[in-house]
């Protein structure tokens, strides 16, 4: 006879309500884990999108994501000719605000050369850029659809395709435009400002620059050798893809990641305390029944089993409800919520440990109950 199940069935509504409350708490915990993962995934998505092996950047800088990098646009030709390089492409990044359908969009504009590395890996809907100017591919989270037009700078661009999960570390969705358009957006001045600059003798004849040049290597070519070669040019530096990713995580999202990680730790601690209190209260309410069980001869293992089984059922049910809820609502979060099966497994392990530890309080109270308590009404 399983006393734990019998007791749960006796007070099923209350138990389900408790599980639901715990489930809501688990939803928050899972949401924080998902946001934490999403922050990292978002930050890395834009770095991983070009599928590059080497990033050539301005010397003395940390690359286009950690700080500003500006190198001559013709660096791409020099890199492309280096031994071991299969293909190379110039790329620019900038953040812009634009208005569409009455709302302001904050966009991460990526300029790349169609046909060269730097564009999105997959187009989810529509097509790639087909002309040299005034077309763009947008991340779905912009809310734009193929056929929409949007004004960027002084020009109106047409949305021709949609991509997914392309955004910067701040969560701003990306739009891809041609390198030529991106450079124009970076340098073109408002007419009045251009006139002032011209009057001051600045003819605007600076050589065109890009943020970085990315290179894909031929099979067997060494990344280390290429980066070392590039660094021989005093005005350039080079990072491998792994270095670029580590740099981004360490310098750009590290503080936010630690903040969310700390908040997650607090949430887990709160969850542990809540679970412990629930289990302790459930046990205290049953002390007279436990005393009766002891009096009629129930061994300690029966009483421990009653408490521990209920604690585990409570924890696992709460986690299950939390998982279902977060899977239902995760797409409605403003930022990406990424949950991996590994996260659910780790959280399950943590909850099991918490439940076992929390039931220890209840077990301690139950084992201390004097069976004589059952006598005397």
């Amino acid at each position, binding site marked *: 006879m399983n006393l734990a199940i019998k*007791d749960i069935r006796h007070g099923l509504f209350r138990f389900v309500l408790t599980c639901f409350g715990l489930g809501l708490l688990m939803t928050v915990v899972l949401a924080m884990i998902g946001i934490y993962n999403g922050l990292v995934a978002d930050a890395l998505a834009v770095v991983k999108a070009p599928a590059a092996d080497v990033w050539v950047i301005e010397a003395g800088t940390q690359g286009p994501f950690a700080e500003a990098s500006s190198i001559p646009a013709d660096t791409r030709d020099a890199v492309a000719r280096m031994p071991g390089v299969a293909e190379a492409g110039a790329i620019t990044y900038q953040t812009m605000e634009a208005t569409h359908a009455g709302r302001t969009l904050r966009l991460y504009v990526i300029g790349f050369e169609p046909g060269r590395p730097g564009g999105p890996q997959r187009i989810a809907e529509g097509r790639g850029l087909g002309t040299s100017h005034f077309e763009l591919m947008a991340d779905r989270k912009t809310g734009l659809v193929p056929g929409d037009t949007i004004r960027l700078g002084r020009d109106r661009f047409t949305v021709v395709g949609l991509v997914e999960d392309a955004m910067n570390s701040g969560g701003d969705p990306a739009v891809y435009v041609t390198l030529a358009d991106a450079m124009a957006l970076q340098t073109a001045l408002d007419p009045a400002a251009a006139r002032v600059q011209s009057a001051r003798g600045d003819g605007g004849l600076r050589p065109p620059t890009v943020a970085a040049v990315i290179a894909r290597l031929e099979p067997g070519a060494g990344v280390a050798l290429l980066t070392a070669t590039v660094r021989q040019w005093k005005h350039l530096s080079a990072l491998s893809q792994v270095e670029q990713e580590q740099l981004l995580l360490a310098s750009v999202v590290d503080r936010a990641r630690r903040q969310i990680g700390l908040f997650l730790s607090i949430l887990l601690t709160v969850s542990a305390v809540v679970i412990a209190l629930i289990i302790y209260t459930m046990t205290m309410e049953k002390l007279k029944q436990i005393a009766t069980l002891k009096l009629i*001869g129930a061994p300690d293992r029966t009483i421990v089993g009653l408490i521990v089984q209920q604690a585990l059922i409570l924890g696992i049910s709460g986690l299950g409800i939390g998982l279902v809820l977060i899977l239902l609502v995760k797409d409605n979060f403003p930022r990406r919520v990424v949950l991996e099966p590994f996260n659910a497994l780790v959280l399950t392990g943590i909850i099991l440990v918490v439940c076992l530890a929390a039931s220890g309080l209840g077990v301690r109270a139950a084992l201390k109950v004097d*069976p*004589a308590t*059952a006598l005397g009404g």
Partner: protein
Amino acid sequence: MTPDDILVDVKGVAKHYGTGETRVDALRSVDLRVHAGEVIALLGPSGSGKTTLLNVIGCILAPTAGRVELDGDAVFDGKWLRSDLRRLRLDKIGFIFQAHNLLPFLTAEENVSVVLDLAGWPATQGRARARELLDYLEVGHRAKVKPALLSGGEAQRVAIARALANRPRIILADEPTAALDSGRAQLVMDLLRKLATEQKACIIAVTHDEKIFDRFDRLIHLRDGRLVEA
């Protein structure tokens, strides 16, 4: 009566709490023998030591001194002689409580069979034994009902069935009729008498219920921890 008929043999049992000026003697050198088939009452004012004596016989409370034998087994002689007191209670002692103390999450049948489950009976045999007892006590028709829906008399009979489930020979009852009206109290006493006779068990009941005093073989008075047999 033969020595084999002695189910409870308490010799020189004392129990005190505290020391020095705060010392309270709950029991002072109590001797008590109860034979198979006997139904005895422990009487006395509040604080006289009735419940303490019941707890000592029920192996719930260790006396300070003395010797206790239950059903021929020495269980206490200055110290507990057995480490598995709960198993001892399960096998030899049945408890009937004033407030029934039925487990609210089990049906009447399960409240009885849980004892057999703990004793290691197979589930089907345990259920059959529980039904047999409930039928015997005329509450078989309420077997699938939870305690909250039982009347006071029905709940008390289920509690008695639970006390008898594992065929103990010593039944300890704490105010078994306190929650019952006069008619039902007489019925319960008839039932306990019948069980004592048929199962060669002894019943030791703590009671204040004067209406049922005439239903006991012996009335044992306790006063200031001393035993005064009437």
